[in-house]
């Protein structure tokens, strides 16, 4: 019970901080991904007219939104706490570092739910035909958020300066989307990148989101890959986040 209270308090602190930082959140979670959807449609040529392509673009934009909010934005908040001394404030409390991270993960889930819902509505308004399987989509979104947040937590814990950390989170947040077959098919990628890019978490996430948007449930291998990556990145993130310096 005590642990839950701690997690909720950390979550509420971040949520209340959003009052002054809603602008950057909407940019990262909605404006950029929505613009990317329109851009992909515009440059997609004849293929873009097919619903399959539009589903790919929408799934790509959802993953883009998750990547920006879970790695770039969340990483930025964690770095800000660390390098402005707020983390020290948490460290003075009988609060476990894991509760601190779990509070942040809760915050990331809320952001992901908001971003995904709005992007789905935008897709619907723009005429994308979809039959989303809500339960499967929720599972994929949660696993993606956990996995990507893990990267943000690791960078925030290891960065030597705020500048270094925010550059890394920004680069990774965008890079994981553009280097993976998220908006386009693997076949259109350079041969040298094709194999590696298919093992990026965003590649698994985009494929799984696409499947669930078209009403499919065959997400087992993608969900498993995301789950394994989430366990590895978060375990490392938990291990690296410490209250006490050596």
């Amino acid at each position, binding site marked *: 019970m005590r642990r839950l*209270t701690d997690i909720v*308090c950390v979550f509420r602190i971040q949520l*209340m901080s959003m009052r002054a930082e809603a602008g950057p959140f909407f940019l990262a979670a909605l404006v950029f991904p929505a613009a990317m959807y329109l851009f992909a449609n515009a440059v997609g040529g004849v293929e873009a007219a097919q619903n399959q392509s539009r589903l790919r673009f929408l799934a790509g934009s959802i993953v883009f939104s998750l990547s920006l909010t879970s790695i770039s934005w969340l990483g930025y908040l964690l770095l800000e*706490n660390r390098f402005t001394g707020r983390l020290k*404030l*948490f460290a*003075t409390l*009988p609060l476990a570092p894991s509760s601190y991270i779990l509070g942040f993960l809760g915050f990331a889930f809320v952001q992901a739910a908001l971003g995904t819902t709005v992007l789905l509505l935008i897709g619907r308004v723009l005429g994308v035909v979809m039959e989303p399987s809500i339960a499967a989509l929720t599972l994929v979104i949660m696993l993606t958020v956990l996995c990507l947040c893990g990267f943000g937590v690791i960078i925030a814990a290891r960065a030597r300066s705020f500048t270094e950390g925010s550059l890394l989170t920004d680069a990774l947040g965008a890079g994981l989307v553009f280097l993976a077959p998220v908006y386009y098919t693997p076949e259109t990628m350079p041969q040298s990148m094709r194999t590696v890019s298919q093992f990026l978490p965003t590649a698994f996430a985009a494929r799984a989101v696409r499947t669930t948007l078209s009403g499919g449930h065959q997400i087992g291998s993608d969900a498993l890959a995301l789950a394994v990556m989430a366990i590895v990145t978060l375990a490392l993130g938990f291990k690296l986040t410490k209250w006490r310096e*050596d």
Partner: protein
Amino acid sequence: MVTEETLLEPDRARVARQLPERAASVAVRVRGLVKRYADGTEANRGIDLDVQRGELISILGPNGAGKTTFLRQISTELRPSGGSIEIFGLNAVAAPQRVKQIMGITPQEAGVFESLTVREHFELFARLKNLSKAAARAATRKVISALGLVAETGKRVGSLSGGQRRRILIGLALLGRPPLLVLDEPTTGLDPSSRLAVWGVIRRAVTDGATVILSTHYMEEAERLSDRIGIIDHGRLVAVGTLDELLGRLERSYRLSYHDQLDPFGKLCVHYFASFNEARAHVADAELSEYSIARASLEDVYFTLTGERFERGDTESA
């Protein structure tokens, strides 16, 4: 743990309730404390100190002497390289989370959440200190009132001055009335009236039964607040005692100060003498027309032990 039922308890009793069963009469026991960094720097070199329950001890020392390192180790923020720290009989090195339940800490450099209002900040951190909702609200009201922040209650922390934010950090340590307060330069950056208000709050906490360890750059703060004063230099606790005990360590307790008559705006010359007459004799020999003879102060003890003087800004009185 403070609960709603304990809200009306006398403060002294509430502080006692938070202590472990059979808590020692010594609040803090430090033995052979060493901090050695990877580059070989030794910030603390074997510090021994006992702080009694209900005592307020100030730690003085030049910049880089090891004061903050010492306090960071007590507050469990920094793992010691050697030695032991017991807080009310609990091993602070082995069980930092347990120990933090009975400690209020103000770090030297900590940030606040600028988007939260003052009330939200206190209430959420009170909850993180394991206070119930009602107790958190009550504790918030008390701390805000004690620190003179009533007019700022509903304001965003980001709109407050540096001194007001510093008071918030002190208030966060006071939430829940922990039996031990560890305050690292709590009044640095505060204007004189705010500093006086904080001194009052700290003294009240001691009256209510708390034990306080604080580091300070202000001589006057140490003199006026402390039951005992410790002086750290080059990582060692070179002296600890009451003000009278420290003054008693000086063999020459009369201080003669003057400016060179040929350079009246130059450096202040200071000499120490065993008696007033000895000082007067020196004045006659040197044919000084403008001078001052005074009993030695804590500043003189500090100078004698560390070889360093406080800068004028540091001794600014409140």
